[in-house]
């Protein structure tokens, strides 16, 4: 055996020995250590979550560092300008589309505004006074009648004075019905009423003293107290009414408030070419347009409201509330040209936000434009165009030489001579907007002068507002037959009663228990389904989608002394006349396509046959806005539709 072979054997042995030792150590470790003998990994849930969290944090830290590093990377000036210009061009294109649309909305609303203001200037100032007369006269009559009755049935030393004062008050109301809001007449009216109140106060004391002598005669006490209560009620309601009214000179009734600026009618500066403007300039152009649209809309809506509710124009301006612009943001502070990648990102995000803001402005402008189109056709009538035969509650319509169409429709909506059954179609045909309905208008200008030519009702003197009483109006029958529906087709096999079950409802607004529509709330100015307003007891109210499973619709968050609004839309394949049945607890007003078609008064229970109106729906989408004022306890309303043929 040579030395080489011997060395190889020694090395082999060494390897075997070392291997054996290692295996032995491994075996010992395996036997002695439990952890090495585990066949599966078991871990605590908390440990896993903790490790995940740590890993995530580490990853975020790395990402943040990378981002910071990236954001601090400086850009070459030329590159930065080129990139920023590309971003700006891309965002500017989006803004330009919206701004062009807003320009057309502004032009359209300015036409509506000019037409409405023209209508206001032609309104007879006596109309406003007559609206107070309409509400005051029944109360004054009730006061005088009950005071006389009081004097007859329970004469006391003060009772003739009460009757005399009430009678003088009534005579004054009747003799000055078209001047009731003139400050000197109004003051005298207040003084006369104060006298009546004092006399009745004396009578109350005298009656208390007299009744002390026959406390045991319950029937007599009840009878006398009832008469006294009737007088006191009428007296208090008159106080309330006079307290709400604001005297105004007849010369000021149609005058706009000092802050109002009419749109410029002469040649204006040429609108800048949008393609020449930078993104911040486009943003400001959109803001300017929005303000112009808002201003025109407020003025047109105020004039419309003044005509419809027969109120002074300044009061109507106070009542309208157009949606404000979105919260302040200005792209002026954006870094240009961006120096680093971070600034470039900031620039991009800023412009994206600017586009979003312009979209919001456009959205609100679009809503105002659509609403403007809806009420554009109302209230344009002047004295000589006042529809003869329109429902007037007291036959005093001639006192002021006629009234606006909106006011006529409003009065007819309340029942007028027609009572429960009133045909509102003449007002809707004569004053309604084009067939597109809410939001369906195809743009373009509105020629206010042509509306009167669309209907034969206007000058023919044959406006019929009273319809003959339908024959099939059993409440039980209607409830049994009615089905929900909002799309109507002539070819539909369904011809009976349909009820509106789907509404957007907003409320409660505080009405302090007065269910007289005197106070208006923002939804009456404009229906904006994304808006929120301060409501009752400091809460914020928003439009809530509400679907009712039966005819009666109960507003969500129902409460006493509150006002709610309901908004919905219905679709008709073609222009269609329909009969609507309205029931409300308590009072309600309904506008269809901006025309007031229904109104009731006082705390009344829900009755399905409370009132019927014959109305006309345009082809396409039609808007329905309902206001319900709740007095005490429950609040419910229903709106049903039926073809007139089915019930006549």
């Amino acid at each position, binding site marked *: 055996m040579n030395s080489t072979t011997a060395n190889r054997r020694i090395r082999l042995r060494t390897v075997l020995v070392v291997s054996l030792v290692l295996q032995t150590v491994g075996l010992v470790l395996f036997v002695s250590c439990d952890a090495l003998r585990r066949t599966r990994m078991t871990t605590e849930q908390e440990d896993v979550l903790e490790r995940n969290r740590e890993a995530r944090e580490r990853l975020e830290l790395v990402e943040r560092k990378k981002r910071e590093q990236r954001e601090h990377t400086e850009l070459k000036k030329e590159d930065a300008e080129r990139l920023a210009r590309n971003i700006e061009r891309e965002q500017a294109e989006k803004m330009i589309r919206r701004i062009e649309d807003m320009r057309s909305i502004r032009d359209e609303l300015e036409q509506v505004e000019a037409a409405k203001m023209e209508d206001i200037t032609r309104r007879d100032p006596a109309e406003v006074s007559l609206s107070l007369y309409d509400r005051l006269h029944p109360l004054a009559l009730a006061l005088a009648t009950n005071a006389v009755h009081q004097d007859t049935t329970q004469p006391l030393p003060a009772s003739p004075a009460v009757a005399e004062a009430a009678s003088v008050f009534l005579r004054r109301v009747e003799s000055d019905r078209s001047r009731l809001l003139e400050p000197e007449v109004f003051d005298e009216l207040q003084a006369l009423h104060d006298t009546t109140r004092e006399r009745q106060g004396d009578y109350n004391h005298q009656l208390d003293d007299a009744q002390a002598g026959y406390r045991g005669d319950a029937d007599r006490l009840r009878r006398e107290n009832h008469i006294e209560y009737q007088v006191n009620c009428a007296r208090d309601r008159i106080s309330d009414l006079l307290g709400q009214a604001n005297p105004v000179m007849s010369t000021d009734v149609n005058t706009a408030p000092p802050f109002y600026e009419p749109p410029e009618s002469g040649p204006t500066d040429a609108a800048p070419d949008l393609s020449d403007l930078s993104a911040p300039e486009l943003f400001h152009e959109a803001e300017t347009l929005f303000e112009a649209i808002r201003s025109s809309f407020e003025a047109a809506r105020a004039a419309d409201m003044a005509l419809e509710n027969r109120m002074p124009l300044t009061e109507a301006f106070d009542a309208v509330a157009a949606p404000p612009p979105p919260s302040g943001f200005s792209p002026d502070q954006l870094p240009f040209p961006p120096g680093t990648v971070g600034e470039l990102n900031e620039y991009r995000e800023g412009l994206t936000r600017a586009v979003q803001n312009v979209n*919001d402005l456009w*959205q609100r402008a*679009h*809503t105002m434009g659509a609403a403007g189109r809806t009420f554009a056709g109302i209230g344009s009538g002047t004295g000589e165009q006042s529809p003869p035969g329109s429902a007037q509650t007291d036959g005093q319509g001639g006192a002021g030489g006629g009234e606006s169409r909106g006011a006529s429709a409003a009065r007819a909506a309340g029942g007028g001579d027609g009572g429960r059954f009133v045909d509102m179609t003449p007002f809707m045909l004569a004053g309604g907007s084009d067939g597109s309905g809410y*939001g*369906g208008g195809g743009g373009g200008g509105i020629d206010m002068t042509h509306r009167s030519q669309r209907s034969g009702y206007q000058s023919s003197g044959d406006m019929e507002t009273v319809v003959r009483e339908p024959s099939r109006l059993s409440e039980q029958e209607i409830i049994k037959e009615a089905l929900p529906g*909002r*799309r109507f087709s002539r070819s539909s096999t369904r011809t009976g009663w349909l009820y509106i079950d*789907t509404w957007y409802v907003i409320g409660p607004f505080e009405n302090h228990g007065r269910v007289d529509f005197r106070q208006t709330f923002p939804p009456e100015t404009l229906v*904006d*389904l*994304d808006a929120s307003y301060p409501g009752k007891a400091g809460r914020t109210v928003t*439009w809530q*989608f509400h*679907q009712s499973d039966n005819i009666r619709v109960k507003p969500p968050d129902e409460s006493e002394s509150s006002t709610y609004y309901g908004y919905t*839309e219905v*679709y008709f394949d073609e222009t269609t006349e329909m009969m609507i049945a309205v029931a409300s607890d308590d009072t309600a007003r309904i506008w269809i396509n901006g025309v007031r078609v229904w109104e009731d008064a006082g705390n009344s229970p829900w009755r399905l046959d409370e009132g019927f109106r014959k109305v006309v729906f345009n082809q396409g*989408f039609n808007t329905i806005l309902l206001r319900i004022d709740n007095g005490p306890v429950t609040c419910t309303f229903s709106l049903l539709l039926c073809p007139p043929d089915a019930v006549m």
Partner: protein
Amino acid sequence: MRINLQNHEGNDEDIPLSPLIDAVFLLLIFFLVATMMKKVNRDIDIELPESVSAERLAPTDENRVIGIDADGLVYYEGEPASIQSLHIRIRDLGISDPDMQIRLDVDRETPTHRVIEVLDLCRFNHLGNVGIRTYDEFYNR
């Protein structure tokens, strides 16, 4: 035997690379353009409900996606939309293309009334082809 790879002049034969590069570039451009043509659909943060019986449909861009997140906020084609603007868009769609498929991406925590509201809106505007997207293990992976 040896193959003679030399030409008559004695130079090595080259594979012509220019056409190959042209083809590769054309393919690259094709894929770039095809990717850009794909409709941009922004992700919205919603957790879809699961369903075992949902019909599996091939993904398509020929639809309109309305998303509603857990807070009831609405998205139209991945962008935040107000209720008013949703009404306008759905109305326009109902007039211009009533057969358009509407896909509702709704979070499992979304208030039901909001879903009903959107469904009712579609139905009122004559859009009958409405489907609700559910979680799909393969598609949503």
